[in-house]
């Protein structure tokens, strides 16, 4: 949760995947080797390179112009010990897992404006909320127990 505008007034870039024709927001397919887990399953690493994205600084304006860009990133989730369960039968979703820590490092290129940005190393990033686990929703909600 947060207070204040989702998009800060001093934002100069907004990088994300395009919205799919199906209406899916900012979701991109991951190559099979892009997501790996530690042997104990408590650490997950999502790493991708040259992901085609867009820079849309005036998002969420309807006429916010886009510029093609590319993203390299490494995202590491590390599970903590506190279990969480979020479920809503009316909305047909159930998530079971653990609170987690997540850290991210990324590099972004916008070739048309000769802009390159690289974050500081992974260890320096922070996030406010992270969980990792398993989820079922929609048609799988009634028929699947998590872990099955």
């Amino acid at each position, binding site marked *: *949760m*947060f207070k*204040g505008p*989702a*998009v*800060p007034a001093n934002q*100069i870039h907004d990088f*994300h995947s395009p919205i799919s*024709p*199906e*209406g*899916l*927001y*900012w*979701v991109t*397919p*991951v*190559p099979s080797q892009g*997501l790996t887990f530690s042997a104990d399953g408590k650490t*997950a690493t*999502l790493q*991708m390179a040259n*992901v085609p*994205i867009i820079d849309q600084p005036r998002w969420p304006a309807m006429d916010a112009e886009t510029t093609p860009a590319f993203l390299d*990133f490494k*995202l590491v*989730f590390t599970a903590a010990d506190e279990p*969480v369960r*979020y479920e*809503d039968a009316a*909305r047909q*979703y159930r*998530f079971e*897992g653990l609170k*987690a820590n*997540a850290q*991210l490092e990324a590099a972004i290129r916008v070739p048309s404006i*000769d*802009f390159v*940005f*690289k*974050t*500081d190393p992974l260890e*320096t*990033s*922070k*996030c*406010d*909320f*992270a*969980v*990792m*686990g*398993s*989820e*079922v*929703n*929609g*048609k*799988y909600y009634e028929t699947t127990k998590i872990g099955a």
Partner: protein
Amino acid sequence: MARDHVSRLELDRRRWLKLGITSAAAVSLRGTLLAQSEAQACAPPIPQNHEPSNGGTCPYPIPWLDKNGNHNQAAMPDVELSSIYHFKGKLARCNGFHGMGTDNKGNRLAWGTPTTDYSYMAGEYWAARQAHKAVFAHT
């Protein structure tokens, strides 16, 4: 002569009126045609060679998340964390990333907002009337 002048004026006025109505109709027609052409682009393709018609194989969003016309719901406790509907599998999500970085001109810039979030969804989703295995990331 005066009568001719009056009737010419009436003719001109009628012509202008007619032109005005025609223009308005043309604008309205153009709007309708544009709307029809946009709607046509949403028409499902007619299968050729007796192929089945089961819809697209790409995942689609959580229907009820559209209350704000925006499926990008911020991650937090007790909310739907998947971006994909009819999904079962491994999922992790994080929100509120922030940090520092440097651009190619040496400028130090802050990155991240309260809604800067990432996730992975690895497992099975349902589309085109069948199950598909895939991994997706919300970036």
